């Protein structure tokens, strides 16, 4: 302790105090203040930029959500439209089929009626033909049969025979 007091130098203490206080004030004016201010400005700048980026990100997310929703809606609408169209198509096909069936049926009926008529006409004509033909044949046969006396006699006789039998 005594050695410490002996070693203590007032001059050094005085200069140290004066020089250090001067150094603190000088550095405060020319170094610390500008340095700390610059750093603070930079930090607040960085913070603001980060905040802005965060906001932009949020906005972007909102925008994306909106887009997604719009897309979803559009998809649903298209789906509905497609469904309607499909139904319409089926209905149209069904209608057309029904129509065609009805027409076909009608045509078939008409055809059948026409065929029936034709058939009757043809039958009537056939009958006439057959009657005429048989009369002609019968005339020819009779004429042929009755061309000679003998034959006439023979016929009469055979008829008589038949008649007798009856």
């Amino acid at each position, binding site marked *: 302790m005594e050695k410490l007091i002996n070693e203590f130098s007032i001059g050094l203490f005085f200069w140290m105090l004066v020089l250090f206080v001067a150094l603190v004030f000088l550095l405060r004016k020319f170094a610390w203040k500008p340095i700390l201010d*610059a750093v603070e400005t930079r930090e607040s700048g960085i913070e603001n930029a980060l905040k802005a980026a965060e906001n932009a990100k949020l906005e972007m997310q909102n925008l994306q959500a909106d887009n997604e929703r719009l897309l979803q809606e559009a998809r649903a609408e298209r789906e509905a439209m497609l469904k309607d169209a499909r139904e319409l198509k089926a209905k149209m096909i069904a209608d057309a089929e029904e129509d065609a069936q009805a027409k076909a049926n009608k045509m078939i009926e008409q055809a059948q009626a026409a065929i029936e008529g034709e058939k009757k006409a043809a039958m009537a004509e056939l009958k006439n033909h057959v009657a005429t033909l048989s009369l002609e044949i019968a005339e020819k046969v009779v004429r042929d049969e009755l061309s000679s006396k003998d034959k006439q006699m023979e016929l009469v006789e055979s008829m008589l025979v038949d008649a007798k039998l009856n």
Partner: protein
Amino acid sequence: MHRFLGHYYLSDMQNIFSLKTICLLFVFVTTFSFAKETKAEAGENDIKTEIKEYIDHHLLDSYDFSLFSYTKDNGEHVYVGFPLPVILWDDGLKVFSSSKLKHGETVAEVGGNYYKSYHGKIYKTDAEGTITYDEAHHPTNVKPLDFSITKNVFTILIVGLLMFLMFGSMAKSYKNGALPKGMGRFLEPIVLYIRDDIAIPNIGKKHYKRYMSFLLTIFFFIWIVNLLGLTPLGVNVTNNIAVTLALALLTFLITNFTANKSYWGHIFWMPGVPKLMRIVLAPIELLGIFIKPFSLLIRLYANITAGHIVLMSIIGMMFIFKNWIGSSLSFGLAFALSLLELLVAALQAYIFTMLSALYFGQAVEEHDDH
């Protein structure tokens, strides 16, 4: 006084002190083992006393900036360096060059008065330079008030100038953009560290700006000065009790002049304890105001001085051993210790700044509860 200082600076400095103790023990062990061989050698005691004197001399301040000295064959001491101005107040201002003192070898005659330097101090003497001693071998001559620009003052000036240039140029580099250029790239993280990890956590966001100039200056000042002490220039500013006292005094003054009501309230009339305890606590707390900065000055002084003594002793050991095992061992030890001292240089600056910030924080703390 030493006793209650003990737990203040030993508690956080124990590690470094114990490391130094281990190094010292190692040195002693090696000294004993080699003692047998070297004892017989002539002139060994001369070297030992010379080393001891050299260390003592190194730890003292000096009136000139001597880089090294050697002794010629004819016994003449040659000092390489340059003189510094001596400023005395002895019935008027006396200014003369330290070259007149010739390292205490001659008497300087200035304006009819005679001065002689003896063990790093200037005494007033007669024309022959006689110094009278008391029983304890202390000079009884008159010591004039000494405001000389000594080696330490000169170093402080140089460090101040260096810091001004370094940080001035760093501040200027911000004008061209948000990022510093050159030296600022290295210094900015340290400045930010002091702001974000020392000032703000200890003092608080509200008040820290007032103390930043002091904290930054004191950190870089102690650090640079400690580092300079490790160079072969042989300057050692922070192992002067006057320097550490001046620094601690500033911490003390700033703490007490910026303190708020709550701080004084906690010292003189501690809230939340019984009335009788408050009366008992007041003198203890009052003593604490002085002990806190006192621990600062002793801690810095003791650490740097111890480091210098141990390091120089080990370097001196190389010349005592004079054999390749001992000397190279000493060299290795000195090298390892130098690395440790590099750490201590930064650590002491950090601790001084940290504790100053802590005291400032206590002074401006606002207590809502209790």
